[in-house]
């Protein structure tokens, strides 16, 4: 793969795939861009006209926008915090030899295979329901007032649900990282007089840093666009208490039939996502260099 000739033919060979992917990405992107400059409401078809930046002005000055932005950040950070810390903890436990290890590992991974809509519904109706939910029963058992999670702490509840879904992913990646840790390093540090907590801090965590980076990068991409869990549980409410950017765009373009405004929101979301990506790569991407 090193000669000029082979490089040239390699380029030709992969070009169909690259062109396909490029088209796949560019066409919707440019259409969104185009729509975002139009006054385009589905209730008034055929009345589209160019309005310049008006859509952006309305989207960015909408008080819901800042609420959604804050909620998005809280949601992403909250879930990352829970999954990384919980994942490290679970991976540590699962790495220990114990009876029934294989089955427990499969059980831990199971939530990842449940569709977001399904898991959100299960959480909403079976656990968090203030009348019939398991939590409500638990509260009543202790003589407490049942807590209406989705009404009183909507964002925290959604963070909980989404964390539950992503914890297996983090656990799995961190577990493999733990298993690739050279046992002799741990033994060496043990002989060097490091108690367990220092071995964890100085040897295990640095070894995990690369895996944690991967977890953060991949999860951030998916968490920025959490949608189904919100749609199924709180519908973004009460008010805008659990509306994130994705959900706001959905409301704009499909509930209010405002394609132009929704597209402008989409473009804003793309820009924000890229800012986050650059920021992340700057901050932790260097962990990935060998």
């Amino acid at each position, binding site marked *: 793969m090193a000669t000029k000739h082979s490089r040239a033919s390699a380029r030709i060979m992969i070009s169909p795939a690259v062109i396909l992917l490029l088209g796949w990405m560019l066409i919707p992107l440019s259409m969104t861009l185009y729509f975002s400059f139009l006054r385009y409401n589905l209730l008034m078809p055929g009345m589209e006209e160019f309005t310049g930046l008006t859509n952006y002005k309305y989207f960015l000055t909408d008080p819901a926008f800042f609420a959604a932005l804050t909620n998005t950040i809280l949601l992403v950070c909250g879930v990352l915090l829970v999954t990384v810390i919980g994942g490290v903890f679970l991976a540590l436990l699962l790495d220990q030899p114990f009876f029934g290890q294989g089955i427990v590992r499969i059980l831990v991974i199971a939530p990842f295979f449940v569709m977001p809509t399904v898991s959100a519904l299960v959480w909403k109706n079976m656990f968090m329901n203030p009348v019939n939910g398991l939590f409500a029963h638990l509260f009543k058992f202790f003589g407490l007032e049942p807590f209406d999670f989705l009404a009183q702490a909507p964002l925290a509840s959604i963070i909980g649900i989404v964390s539950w879904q992503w914890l297996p992913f983090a656990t799995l990646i961190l577990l493999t990282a733990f298993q690739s840790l050279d046992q*002799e*390093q741990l033994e*060496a540090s*043990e*002989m*060097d*007089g490091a108690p367990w907590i*220092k071995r964890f801090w*100085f040897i295990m965590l*640095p070894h995990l840093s690369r895996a944690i980076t991967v977890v953060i990068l991949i999860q951030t991409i998916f968490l920025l666009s959490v949608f189904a869990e919100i749609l199924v549980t709180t519908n973004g409410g009460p008010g805008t208490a659990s509306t994130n950017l994705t959900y706001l765009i959905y409301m704009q373009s499909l509930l209010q039939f405002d394609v132009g405004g929704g597209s402008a929101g989409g473009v804003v979301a793309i820009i924000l996502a890229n800012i986050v990506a650059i920021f992340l790569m700057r901050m932790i991407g260097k962990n990935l260099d060998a």
Partner: protein
Amino acid sequence: MGRITLDKVSKAFGDVEVIPPLDLTIEDGEFVVFVGPSGCGKSTLLRLIAGLEDVSGGEIRINGQDATQTPPAKRGLAMVFQSYALYPHMSVRKNIAFPMRMASMPKDEQDRRIEAAAKALNLTDYLDRRPGQLSGGQRQRVAIGRAIVREPDAFLFDEPLSNLDAALRVGMRLEISELHKRLTTTMVYVTHDQVEAMTMADKIVVLQAGRIEQVGSPMELYRTPRNVFVAGFIGSPKMNLLTGLEAEKHSATTIGIRPEHIAISSDSGTWKGTVGVSEHLGSDTFFHVTVEGFHDPLTVRASGEVALYYGDTIYLTPDLTHLHRFDAQGLRIA
């Protein structure tokens, strides 16, 4: 001070007894080498001493004090691992400083010891590199540096040179020997290479299947191996071991004769043989000679270059004063 005593120490993994009860004393300042074939329990024994494995029975005493239940860090021993076990995300300086940092040693004392170790081990130019940016030999030296700065009562080495190439191995062998002479700290060294054992040890412990076959100085083991196993294991090339008729002539079950104790002649001698492969080392030449009626070819040493070629007929005469005789149990007959 670094006197280690093993008293009826045994180790079993589940049902498998890897080390049957065993007694051994390692004196202060001694360079002791555990040697034996692969899987004989050398590493396990070393790890028992280090405290990385729990003993199944018996007692380990360090400087006269029972250390059987003492955690590894408190035993005052430093270990150098076969894979070096350096911390990859720390610089060489931080690697070496790690044990001192764990012991909360004052910073200036840490720096002083790091400088001293780096100078002794030729690492001064590499202190700010990561282990990944070092060669195998340099990594080995960092691992040794990390052990030295703790100023332990004894060093434990588990095949520290087996990842290095032949030339480097000889160099590091000398460096470790020199280090021992300088520090006069007890060293316990595990290897499967009997040349390393012979050249470095004050005392060799030959192990087989977890049992101690013989303990003694390299020359003691070479001159008077206690049994057939030690006779065959110590010495390179191997001692020639003969059984059957030839051994019965000397009223033994097995007899052994080292390659250098066989005289070569072109016209007369005890055994008549045909020259097979010869290995020229410059200073010596080793001939593999097939003798009629013997199971294996004999290895014979000749000094310098000798004009003998493949297929030549030669006569061999063993030097009977250096003949080793062993009985049916494989034990030496005095």
